[in-house]
Structures are given as structure tokens and as C-alpha cells.
């Protein structure tokens, strides 16, 4: 209660920690703005000096190049080429993310296996792959594996006579019909299969009997696809070697294969570690409880451990997905026609560099942010509701 201590002398405003914090923030912001203003000013000056376009008009110019595996005409505008590049990036991203997740999860589980062989193989895979630079892996995959280890088209490998594998690409059997037909068929089958599975789950919940509802769903899906396909008379065609190329089926570009393979191998090694860590983070009691009610090993993993592990893994997995999407831009180094390659080609053919690459940056940013939104959505859905 001594008055000397309870009335501190007033701190001058320039030594007030709150003022200082604000001032520092504002200074930092000003410095950043000044830097950008200076760069932008230089850009303006350089551009004015050499009469370079600065707007997006170049998108309407004819593209003047073609894209492998696509019927884009060289007289179509640059805009269309960018759209194709965007779609190709999405193709790699979707397939890459799906495969990397599956492979990564399997290897993550393998690293925790009680079997010495399986566990060691998992460790070797992870330690080998995640310590390599991705660009090197990609170059190796393209120059050493696809170009040299795959057969030439003259002596293409024809497994089961269903596929044609050569260093000009991998051709697989494919549906005849438009992508829209295919999409509608698969979507409606998936919807029906989902409903069937849901009904089975509800019945199982009521009766208390064990039921392989999701297996039933998958079987339903396959059966329905076949039924729809027979009903509407879609066919499928097998690829075959035709001169120096293949005809029929769906041909996967060799650089597409090299890119997806490298991205999957690389990203899965990181995902495996995330999955392993997340499984270990699930409380030990959960596993013991599963053992106590006599669940089998696979049931324990599938029903008890993995659902909880993925809840923990989700944010980290999201990062890996973002990395995979961004790393797909390395496809430009092996002639895969994704967004970056398109940007480079079109800039080489007379499109102005700054607007073209700014546009490309924004597209990548948009893809990544949308992916973040999706991951965050699932993360919230999966997160434990804590009260």
C-alpha cells in the first residue's frame, strides 16, 4: 500500500512498447511498399523504353503451336493454350495426389510393421527417396527410365495385348464415347452405389451384425458401370501399334508418365512419414481396446487407428498436396505441356513475359488456395469437436 510503488512515472510515448510495436509494423510495411513501388517504376520505365505490351491482349493472339495429345489448332488463341495447360496441370495434380496418398499410406503402415522385411523396405524407400532432389529424380525418370528402359515403338511391350508400352507413351484400353457420357455414367453409378452402401450401413447398425457395406458399394459401382455401359451401347477399344505410333484406347504421354511417377514417388515418401507419425500419435489405449474386443489386425487398422490417424494427418497432408501441385511445374523441364511449359513457349513466341508469367502465377495461386480451402473444410469436418 505504499504510494511510491503504486504510481509509476508515466512512460513517454516513444518508449511505450505499444507505440514502438505499431511504429515498427508501419515502417516494415512502408519499406515493402517502397520496394515494390521502385520495382514497378523500373518495370514501367523499361517497358515504355522498349514498347513491350503490359496488358493481357496477347491472350487473343494465335497460339502458333500445338499440344501433344490435344487437338488444339495452332490458329486458336493463346488463351485456349493456357486453358489446356491448366487442365493438364489439374490432371497431374488429381492423379498424383490420389496415387501419392495411397502409396504413402501403405508405406507409412509398412514402416510400423512387425515384419522385419516389410519394415526395412519401407525405411529404405523413405530414406532413399526423400533425400533426393525432385528435379534430379524427374530427369532420371525421363532420361533413364522412360527414354532408355522402355522399349522402342518397334518392339513395344504388349502386356495381355491390352496395353501398349513404349517410350512414346503408354496406351491403355479406353471407353468409346464423349467424356460427358463417360462422366454421367460413372457419376450416376457412383451415386447409386453410395446410396446402396448407406442403406446397408444403416441396416448393419440396426441389426448389430458385421457387414462389408463399402465392399458391397464398390461391387455395386462396378456392376452398375458395366450395366450402364451395356445398356447404352458404349464400347471400349484396345490400343494397337500402328506404324510409328498407337491407335485406339487412351494414350498417356511419356512425359506425363514420367512426371506423375516422379511426383508420386517423391511425395509418397513424405506422406509415409506423416502417416507413420500420425498412427503413432493415436493413443496406445485405442489399439489395446481394439485388441480387447478381438478385432483382427486389419480391422483394428481400418476401423480404429487410421480414422483417428488421418484426423491428425490432415493438415500436414494438405501441405504435401500443395507441394505436389506446385512441383508439377517441373514438368516443363521434360516437355510435359502443363501451365509453366505453355507460359514458357508462348513467351518465347512473342507474348510479353511479365503479364504472361503474372497470369501463370495467379493461376497457381488460385489452384493452391482452392486446395487449401478443400483441405481446411475436411480438416474441420474431421476435427474432434471439443467442448
Amino acid at each position: 500500500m505504499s504510494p511510491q510503488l503504486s504510481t509509476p512515472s508515466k512512460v513517454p510515448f516513444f518508449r511505450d512498447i505499444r507505440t514502438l510495436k505499431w511504429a515498427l509494423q508501419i515502417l516494415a510495411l512502408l519499406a515493402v511498399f517502397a520496394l515494390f513501388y521502385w520495382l514497378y517504376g523500373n518495370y514501367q520505365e523499361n517497358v515504355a523504353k522498349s514498347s513491350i505490351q503490359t496488358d493481357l491482349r496477347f491472350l487473343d493472339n494465335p497460339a502458333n503451336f500445338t499440344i501433344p495429345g490435344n487437338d488444339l489448332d495452332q490458329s486458336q488463341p493463346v488463351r485456349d493454350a493456357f486453358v489446356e495447360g491448366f487442365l493438364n496441370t489439374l490432371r497431374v495434380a488429381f492423379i498424383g495426389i490420389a496415387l501419392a496418398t495411397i502409396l504413402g499410406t501403405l508405406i507409412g503402415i509398412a514402416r510400423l510393421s512387425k515384419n522385419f522385411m516389410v519394415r526395412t523396405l519401407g525405411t529404405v524407400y523413405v530414406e532413399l527417396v526423400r533425400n533426393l532432389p525432385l528435379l534430379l529424380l524427374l530427369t532420371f525418370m525421363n532420361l533413364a527410365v522412360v527414354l532408355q528402359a522402355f522399349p522402342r515403338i518397334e518392339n513395344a511391350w504388349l502386356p495381355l495385348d491390352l496395353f501398349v508400352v513404349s517410350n512414346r507413351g503408354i496406351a491403355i484400353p479406353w471407353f468409346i464415347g464423349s467424356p460427358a457420357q463417360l462422366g454421367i455414367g460413372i457419376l450416376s453409378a457412383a451415386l447409386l452405389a453410395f446410396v446402396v452402401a448407406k442403406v446397408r450401413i444403416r441396416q448393419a447398425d440396426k441389426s448389430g451384425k458385421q457387414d462389408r457395406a463399402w465392399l458391397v458399394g464398390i461391387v455395386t459401382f462396378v456392376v452398375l458401370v458395366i450395366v450402364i455401359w451395356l445398356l447404352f451401347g458404349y464400347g471400349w477399344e484396345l490400343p494397337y501399334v500402328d506404324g510409328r505410333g498407337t491407335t485406339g484406347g487412351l494414350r498417356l504421354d511419356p512425359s506425363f508418365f514420367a512426371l506423375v511417377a516422379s511426383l508420386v514417388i517423391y511425395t509418397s515418401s513424405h506422406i509415409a512419414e506423416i502417416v507413420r507419425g500420425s498412427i503413432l500419435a493415436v493413443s496406445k489405449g485405442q489399439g489395446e481396446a481394439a485388441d480387447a474386443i478381438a478385432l483382427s489386425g486389419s480391422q483394428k487398422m481400418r476401423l480404429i487407428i487410421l480414422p483417428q490417424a488421418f484426423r491428425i494427418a490432415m493438415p500436414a497432408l494438405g501441405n504435401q498436396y500443395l507441394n505436389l501441385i506446385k512441383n508439377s511445374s517441373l514438368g516443363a523441364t521434360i516437355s510435359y505441356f502443363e501451365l509453366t511449359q505453355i507460359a514458357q513457349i508462348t513467351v518465347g513466341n512473342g507474348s510479353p513475359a511479365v503479364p504472361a508469367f503474372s497470369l501463370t502465377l495467379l493461376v497457381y495461386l488460385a489452384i493452391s488456395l482452392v486446395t487449401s480451402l478443400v483441405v481446411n473444410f475436411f480438416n474441420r469436418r474431421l476435427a474432434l469437436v471439443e467442448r
Partner: protein
Amino acid sequence: MKRKSLSVLAVASAAGLFLAGCASTEAETTTPAATQTTTTTTTEAAGSLLDSVTAAGSVRCGTRDALPGFAVTNDAGEHVGFDSDFCRVIAAAVLGDANAVEMIDLETADRFTALQSGAIDVLVRNTTWTATRDGSEGANFLQPTFYDGQGMMVTSDSGYNAIAAMDGAIICVAKGTTTEGNAALESSRLGLDWEIRSFDETDLILEAFLAGQCDGWSSDVSQLTGLRSAYPNGSDALTILPEVFSKEPLAPAVLDGDTAWAQAVNWAILATIQAEEFGITSANVDSIRDTTEDVGILRFLGAEVPGSDGAAVLDPNLSLPTDFAYQVVKQVGNYGEIFARHLTPLGLDRGLNSLWNDGGILYAPPYR
């Protein structure tokens, strides 16, 4: 909820920044004040590039590597080739020293950015002069050093003997070049349904070609000839098909809006052509200068020309030393010598690149 709105905000603001940037550019270039600034900068720059090259004592020449005949780095680390020699021609003309040149290797797709950013003073990198590049890359193309055309190379055992026979073939080309567009155009013109793959570097195309991933390798015939001569399986393993399906004037380029520098580079190149027309070579340039009475040659070499009011040296005010042509020929050689040194060994004929009075289209304006 908060995170979501933040990311949406980020996209929106990034897009806004970008659009605002575009919009303000247009606005600024239309206001009179901005136009004035632009003009001032241009005049400043016009003096400065020639001046800055002189001050630096070396020409930064944008070139390349790994193209036999045009530009390769030899074991001693020197650039050797037709394009490299034209870099030296420019250095000899501007600075009086053919070795005062810094060779800067560029990827095909980066070359115009390097020119625009001022990382190089001049681009001599077997670059085709086209309207779009002239107009929208800010490049100012000068006297072509080589008139080329695009052709097709195939393996000799492929059985292809004409371009029209290559239906459904895979054609490999260099990324970001006129080659891509020409090949696409030729494919649709002949209805051949080519798949055109573009690669960053010649080495990568070579790998793909060796592995049988490509049926045809399309590029300028001069390049193909050079690549064929260095093919690992021997040059006989490759055949260049007879058809040529494009015009490819390969020309050096400088940045737009710098007239003095453009003139200097242009006349350095024209000097090699004029020297050949005069019959002046690096071997005989000294004796010709000392003995000739031809006024045209004396003017050209920057020697004193006897006139009515005493002897005088012609100075056409090109901002070049008056003896630049002498230095070019003495230190590097005339056009024919440069061609014979680098391109004849590859098996290239002079063809279009002969002098105008010898059936070609090389023609230098009079030096007077």
C-alpha cells in the same frame, strides 16, 4: 471461418493488384505527361548503351552453346562459331578489339527477356526476325547474318524420303522458337497430324531422338546440318530431307529505341559483307589499304582519301571509329571468311547467303 475469408481476400487482392497494374499502365501511356517522360528516357538510353559499352570496354553479347558451327564452347572455354564471330565483329567495330566481348549463354526461351532487361547489349543467337518479335518483344532486328529456312532431319534407316510421307509422326523441336509454329503450320497445311514436342535444350532433343521417341527433328537447316555433323552415331545415320518450309532470316537484335547503338551494330555487320564485295580479307587488308587507289575502298577502310582540299578521312557520323571496317576485317575477317571458317566445314553451301552479284541476297548499302 476466419481462415477461409482470409484466403479469399488474398486471391482477390492479388488479382486486384495485377489488374490495377495493367490498367494504370494503359492510363499512363495515354497521358501527355507520361509520353514526355518516355521520350526523355529513350533519348537518354540512346546515348547510354553505346556510351556504356565504350565505358565498360566490352560488349555483352547474348549467345548460346552447343550449336556446332554457330556457337560452341571449345575445350579452352572459348566460344567458337559463326554467331560468336559476329559478336567479335561488333566488339572490333565499336571498341577496336575483337576480344573485348563477354559471351553470355542464353536459353532459347530467355533470350528476349535478357535483351529487354539489359542483361545483354546485343543478341546474336541464331534468332529469326519476325514481325511479332519486332513488334512485341521490344527487339530491333538488324542486317541478317544468315538467311535460313526450316527443314526436317530423320534417321537414315527410317525410310522417310519426303516430309509429306511423315503422316502421324512425332516431331521434336526447341521450345519457344519459330520452329514450333512453322511445324504446326506445315502439319496442318499438308494434313499430316504431327505430334510436336518441344524441349528446353538441344541436348534433350538429342536424347529423345537417339532413344527413338521422335521421328523427325525439325529446325533451321543450318542448325540441322551442324547437329548432324556432331551426331554420336555418325553423320551418315541422319538425313536432312530436301524440303525447306519457312523463311528464317537469322538476325542480330538490339533493344528498341536506341538508334545510335542499332546503327553501330548494323554497320559492323554490313562491313563484313562490303569487305567481301571489295575482295578485302584479313590477310590482304593491310596491303590493300597501303596500295589501293580506289576511293571507295579507302573511304571504307577509314584511310585518308585525297580530295580537292587536302586528304580527309570519311566520317559518316555513325558514332563508330572511322577505321571500324579495317578493324573488323583485320581482326575477324570478311563475311566469306567467317562463313568458310565455321559453316563450310559442316557442309553448308553459301546459297542465299552469297553476295548479290554472285546469285545470293547479301547486299550492303554503299559506304559513302
